[in-house]
């Protein structure tokens, strides 16, 4: 069960760990982070910037800045930061006793080694705005939304204790409904690949996990009717110079569909994809939800091109989701033995 809980933690955005602490005073974001050197992006034959290829967004740089760190590190500081993060993240350590070893049996063989490196620009958080590198404070939630959160917390508790009542006690990733294919795209423990294919009027983004393709229509058509909501929302894009700007709406209202329990009705995400070098894309997203956070926030995640010989492979999930049955049978068996 501990292994299961560990996997579940991994499925939730593993690197977006909540690191609490006093934020340093705001200072201007590093120019290198937000204003990349101009790069003449290659173009498709029909004249759009060419984002095609297989890209990987793995990094150990946390979403939120750890306690007291400045925003950009020197080479020496960066080396220390990277090795400290890598030490914490690696599952090949043997310094935690028997219980920790059992947990780490799902070891680095299964993980993406690229997740042990910080971003090349040596930032200490993926969040670039607010300047303190942290998700803004929550606004007071309505009693209804508090109730939804408590109910979810109860389900998580049952699941982590090895006692799920039902499949609905498991998260959407565990149920193989959506996983890291839902925007914003955040790095996780493995399968951090994205394949982009373009034809006139559409940019297809295929995240490795799960196998859904997000069609970003760039031909100026309107969003879907409000009456059609989707697990991955409905994306529309336009080109702003070399940048693909994507706005996504029409998310379903199920719990867990939008980031960290935001309100799907007021949640808005804008993503920007900019080719900043022959082997790199800057992926930047801004989330606003006045019903959840006191102000909008923005993160920047570098995507690195994957060697063309290293192909993205199909990620099946539901088809062989043996564990969902193991979790439930295990729970029924534990309850029977406890009586």
């Amino acid at each position, binding site marked *: 069960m501990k292994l299961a809980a560990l996997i579940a933690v991994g499925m939730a955005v593993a690197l977006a760990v909540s690191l609490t602490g006093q934020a340093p005073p705001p200072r201007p974001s590093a120019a290198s982070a937000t204003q990349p050197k101009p790069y003449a992006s290659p173009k*498709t*034959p*029909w004249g759009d910037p*060419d984002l*095609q*290829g297989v890209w990987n967004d793995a990094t150990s740089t946390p979403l939120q800045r750890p306690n007291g760190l400045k925003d950009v590190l020197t080479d020496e500081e960066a080396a220390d930061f990277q090795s400290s993060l890598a030490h914490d993240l690696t599952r090949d350590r043997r310094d935690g006793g028997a219980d920790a070893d059992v947990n780490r049996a799902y070891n680095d063989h299964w993980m993406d080694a690229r997740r042990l490196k910080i971003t090349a620009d040596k930032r200490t958080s993926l969040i670039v705005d607010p300047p303190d590198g942290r998700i803004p404070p929550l606004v007071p939630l309505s009693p209804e939304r508090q109730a939804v959160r408590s109910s979810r917390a109860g389900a998580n508790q049952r699941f982590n204790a090895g006692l799920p*009542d*039902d*499949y609905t006690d498991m998260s959407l990733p565990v*149920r*193989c*409904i*959506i996983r890291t294919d839902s925007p914003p795209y955040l790095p996780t423990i493995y399968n951090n690949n994205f*394949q982009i*294919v*373009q*034809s*006139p009027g*559409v940019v*297809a983004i*295929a995240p490795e996990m*799960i*196998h*859904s*393709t997000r*069609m970003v*229509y760039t031909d100026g*058509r*309107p969003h*879907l009717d409000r009456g*059609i909501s*989707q*697990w*991955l929302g409905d994306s529309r894009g336009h080109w702003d110079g070399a940048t693909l700007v994507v706005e996504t709406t029409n998310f379903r209202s199920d719990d867990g569909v939008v980031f960290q329990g935001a309100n799907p009705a007021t949640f808005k995400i804008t993503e920007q994809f900019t080719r900043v070098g022959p082997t790199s894309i800057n992926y930047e997203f801004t989330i606003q939800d006045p019903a959840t956070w006191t102000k909008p926030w923005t993160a920047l995640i570098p995507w690195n091109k994957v060697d063309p*010989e290293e*192909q*993205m*492979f*199909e990620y*099946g999930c*539901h*088809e*062989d989701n*043996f564990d*969902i*049955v193991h979790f*439930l*049978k295990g*729970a*029924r068996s534990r*309850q029977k033995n406890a009586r």
Partner: protein
Amino acid sequence: MGARRRFVLLALIAPAALVGSLAIAQTPAYRPPHRPDGHPDLSGIWQAFVTANWDLQGHEAQPGLHPELDGAYGAGPAGQSIVEGGEIPYRPEALGKKKQNFATRAKVDVSDDKKWHALGDPELKCYMPGVPRATYMPYPFQIVQGSNNTILIAYEFTSATRIVRMNWTQEAPADAWMGWSRGRWEGDTLVVDVTGLREETWLDRAGDFHSDKLHVVERYTPMSPYHLQYEATLDDPTVYTRPWKISFPLYRRLEKNIQLLEFKCVPFTEEMLYGRFRKPGAP
């Protein structure tokens, strides 16, 4: 059907089919516009309007699994065979498995890992449908023909995705539900060679099946701005006596602002698959 009768049937039908395909090959009535790279652009949203997902071979209309509950809603339409020659050339010993598949198509038991895939049509369980079945399911799919030797095919059914690698030599690294697709152009026809298919996928609700030795060669030929002729040859010596062919048109979806929507069916299957493991008395 006995071997002799099958032979007679083939002898009658095969020449007609041959004439048909020659006629298509020799009189290219339509010359599609070409992209700068010299190939037609197959991008767009396409859909088949055959009933082969119920049965590749000729079939009558049929009631649903629970006519007492779903009446005409659950019933399946009649349709003519899309198999060249009418029938799939099963090895005699393989026919039994097809019949058993059909008989147990709606029986589901995921309580044992080892028997997880033993029963039930994968479509019923919302598993990725494989190739060529994904092409003739009653859902649209979108072709995104990249300019970098990659063609992506996204299917509405369970959001399955396939990457067609053009002029690629590397073999499938492992079996996958949607297989390993390598493409090339033959004139204006996109030819896709598919191997590495998981043996668990079926070809239709009638229980038609294959093994992991299945080799599919698909051909997509523009017939008008609004039609592709689709053809697939299935070769699997462990299940069939010879390679066999299906063909049907694909129609371009032309509705204003048509787009691929989600048919994420996992939530529609969870009660069927996992409901029995719920805590007794839980809401």
